[in-house]
């Protein structure tokens, strides 16, 4: 096991030494370079943790504390470079010491240097010079495995029972995170293997890593399964066998089985399972089978050193709790800053200019901190989208419809919560497209379309929102069927014919399914309502467009961030609300002569030739009227991207950034209210939900 670590270390250290050489030559740190550094730091820390090398662990911890702060593509200050170089070199010396003697050498001077540099940079550093881990005294006569067992036992014996379980839980958590990530990559590479034979090398690496990690944790079953799978891949690579679609399916199944096992481990369950023996048998069977020539799909590729390594985005894992805490904290800071502002208004002091400069600085820091925290919450949609590749492949198998999935805008960043809550809706939208949209190949040919059905999923930033568009080139929604279903369920009155967009929106109602037959894929009348529900939870909306014979387009529109918005504080009678700035089109004084009344109480205004319905916010929200109507009133036109509504307000009180807080589950679905925010006076103000306000209002007019 120590040997496995050493091999991995050498590989990582080589790439890092190149990075360091470049840094010393005054070049900026590249994203890949930073990734390499973080990887090495992680490896050293884990090795320290697992194998009991304190000094290595300390260096690893130091470097991983430091890594996330480095901004890629900048030239690092000399002290930082010196620390990196000293850290990596010392780690190298420690490791050569371990290789020859099985123990960490003391290296007092080197570690002292690192400590000084860390101190200079204000980084935490444990003085390891005098630390002597009981484990390092073990003799070389023991095998690696025995050493680790002993190490762990001693370590656990020293620690208090509580600490012991915490340490073990920590190790398991690290293992699970890694394993999940590896399996995700494995799945993707398997799915791409047919088109890109070079992926085989990536796959080998994934299974190799998984094998190593499982071994370190003592998960023998997992280790053996990954080992055998690796062997088969090896055979493919060496040209002893060829990869068929059947093999890929087998491997995908294996990935699922491994995922289930990891999930069990994550919940604190046993790592061993009866399934292992079965899998080992199946794998061996496949191995013999694979040796015979078969239908050839992929030519066995030669090892291809030029194959580009999987592009890593240098992602950082941040615990959700920590993120939420940071988020709250930055929110409080915003409030604090607002309070200082408030003070300056009340007491004009002597040195106003200086005070204002200080304020300006506080503002800068505040928004900087907020932006950083928000950025940390953002993740590319790639991970969310990636899962759909597998889904489409399976749906294609099940329904017998050839399908092509195109993903664009994978780099688009969304809030972490959006990424999580959008998984289910996307799955349902894709299933719906395959089952109800895409016709069987024969029918498509008859209609003059390509036999392969096409599904496009696109993510983009538009107008301060994130749009996720799912489109298919299938038969389109069948309006008559939807209308019939809507009437049957009483969603539409028997005589009325709803507007097209309202009719199509019916598909998002629970219990509405237009599938003629209930299939395994979808059609039980559950599904698209999940889309609507989750999207609304994210304060977004979903729109549908469909052309018969040409396909359906579902567009999910979500707010860019869930954490902070720019708002306009408005007053309606005695109450104050926050109106998101992005939803405000214009504000002006409205002369009573320009207000028009329709039969039946409705009012509207005309702006540049467009008629816009007019409402008083106080009435919509049942706020008690105290003021008497005046000749000219303040009107604010709000819009949700297409529809507009004019709101009569009493006062605009000014703009500010506000932190969005949830009203809690019980009050989360009040029409017109998106959430709450705590303002500088410590009071809660509600944030208006413009799309939902417009919907309610339009619902009344028509």
């Amino acid at each position: 096991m120590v040997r496995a670590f050493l091999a991995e270390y050498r590989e990582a250290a080589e790439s890092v030494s190149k990075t360091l050489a470049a840094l010393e030559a005054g070049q900026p740190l590249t994203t890949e370079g930073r990734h390499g550094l973080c990887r090495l730091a992680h490896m050293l820390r884990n090795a320290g943790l697992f194998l009991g090398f304190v000094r290595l662990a300390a260096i690893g911890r130091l470097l991983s504390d430091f890594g996330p702060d480095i901004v890629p593509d900048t030239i690092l200050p000399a002290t930082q470079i010196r620390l990196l170089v000293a850290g990596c070199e010392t780690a190298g010396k420690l490791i050569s010491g371990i290789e020859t003697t099985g123990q960490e050498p003391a290296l007092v001077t080197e570690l002292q240097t690192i400590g000084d540099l860390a101190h200079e940079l204000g980084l935490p550093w444990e003085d390891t010079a005098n630390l002597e881990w009981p484990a390092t005294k073990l003799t070389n006569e023991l095998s690696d495995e025995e050493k680790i067992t002993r190490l762990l036992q001693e370590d656990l014996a020293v620690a208090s029972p509580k600490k012991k379980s915490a340490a073990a839980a920590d190790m398991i958590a690290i293992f699970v995170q890694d394993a999940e990530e590896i399996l995700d990559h494995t799945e993707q590479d398997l799915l791409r293997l047919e088109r890109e034979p070079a992926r085989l090398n990536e796959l080998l690496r994934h299974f190799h890593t998984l094998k190593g990690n499982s071994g370190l944790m003592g998960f023998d079953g997992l280790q053996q399964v990954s080992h055998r799978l690796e062997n088969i891949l090896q055979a493919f690579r060496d040209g002893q066998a060829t990869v068929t679609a059947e093999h890929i399916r087998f491997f995908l199944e294996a990935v699922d089985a491994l995922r289930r096992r990891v999930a069990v481990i994550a919940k604190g369950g046993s790592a061993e399972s009866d399934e292992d023996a079965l899998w080992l048998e199946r794998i061996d069977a496949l191995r013999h089978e694979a040796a015979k020539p078969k239908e050839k799909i992929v030519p066995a590729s030669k090892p291809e050193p030029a194959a580009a390594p999987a592009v890593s985005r240098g992602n950082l894992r941040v615990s959700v709790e920590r993120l939420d805490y940071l988020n709250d904290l930055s929110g409080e800071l915003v409030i604090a800053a607002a309070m200082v502002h408030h003070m300056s208004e009340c007491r004009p002091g002597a040195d106003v200019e200086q005070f204002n400069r200080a304020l300006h600085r506080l503002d800068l820091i505040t928004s900087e901190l907020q932006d950083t925290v928000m950025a940390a919450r953002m993740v590319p949609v790639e991970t969310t989208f990636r899962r759909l590749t597998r889904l489409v492949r399976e749906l294609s198998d099940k329904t017998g419809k050839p399908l092509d999935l195109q993903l664009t805008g994978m780099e688009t960043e969304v809030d972490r919560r959006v990424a999580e809550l959008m998984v289910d809706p996307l799955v349902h939208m894709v299933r719906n497209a395959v089952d109800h949209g895409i016709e069987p190949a024969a029918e498509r040919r008859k209609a003059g379309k390509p036999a392969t059905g096409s599904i496009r999923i696109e993510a983009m930033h538009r107008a301060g929102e994130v749009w996720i568009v799912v489109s298919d080139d299938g038969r389109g929604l069948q309006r008559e069927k939807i209308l019939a279903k809507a009437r049957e369920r009483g969603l539409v009155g028997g005589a009325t014919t709803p507007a097209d967009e309202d009719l199509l929106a019916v598909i998002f109602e629970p219990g509405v399914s237009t599938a003629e037959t209930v299939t395994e894929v979808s059609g039980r009348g559950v599904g698209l309502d999940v889309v609507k529900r989750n999207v609304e939870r994210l304060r977004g909306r979903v729109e549908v467009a469909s052309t018969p014979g040409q396909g359906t387009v579902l567009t999910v529109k979500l707010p860019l961030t869930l954490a902070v918005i720019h708002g306009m504080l408005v007053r309606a009678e005695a109450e104050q609300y926050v109106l998101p700035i992005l939803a405000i089109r214009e504000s002006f004084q409205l002369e009573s002569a320009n207000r028009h009344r329709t039969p039946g109480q409705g009012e509207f205004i005309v702006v540049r030739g467009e008629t816009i319905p007019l409402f008083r916010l106080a009435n919509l929200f049942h706020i008690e009227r105290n003021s008497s109507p005046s000749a000219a009133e303040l009107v604010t036109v709000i819009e949700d991207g297409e529809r507009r509504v004019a709101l009569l307000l009493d006062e605009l009180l000014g703009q500010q950034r506000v932190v969005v807080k949830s009203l809690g589950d019980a009050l989360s679905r009040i029409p017109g209210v998106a959430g709450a925010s705590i303002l500088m006076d410590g009071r809660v103000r509600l944030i208006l939900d413009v799309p939902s306000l417009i919907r309610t209002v339009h619902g009344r007019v028509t």
Partner: protein
Amino acid sequence: MATNETNMNVAGKNLTFKLNGEEYGLPIAAVQEIIRWQEITRVPRVPNFILGVINLRGRVVPVLDLRRRFGLPPAPPQSRTCIIILQSVHETGQILTGIVADEVTEVVEILPEQVGAPPELGSRVDITFVGGVGQLGARVILLLRVDKILDSNEWFVVEQMTQTEKENSYA
């Protein structure tokens, strides 16, 4: 009739408070803290017993008016009026909810044998909120079922009715 099980549920240490002259009790485990009366931000389009929300150290917490919830006459806040913050654990995490009390009296231990069944007043009087009646000598304490009070699915059943009658005037 209260079963033994009900007695067990509402018996134990209770925080007692006054509402419209009656004394009520809440299991102490459900109470996070008691705060002074403060201005409450009204939330539109909710049943009238939801007074609105307050800021509890950065958290937005809804506040209920039990007088209205129980069909008692509303009363303006007095000097002893306070807000009892209740905590409950939900699948989405810990939930805090405030309830308004005329005045908080004390914490008393109520033994299971001191708990009587809630009175049977026929179907027209809703006493589902009362899990039992504690009798300490001459003192009578209505022991509340926190789960019933905090069941937000129930909150909006009432709203459906009050809302429609309000939907009239536009601009």
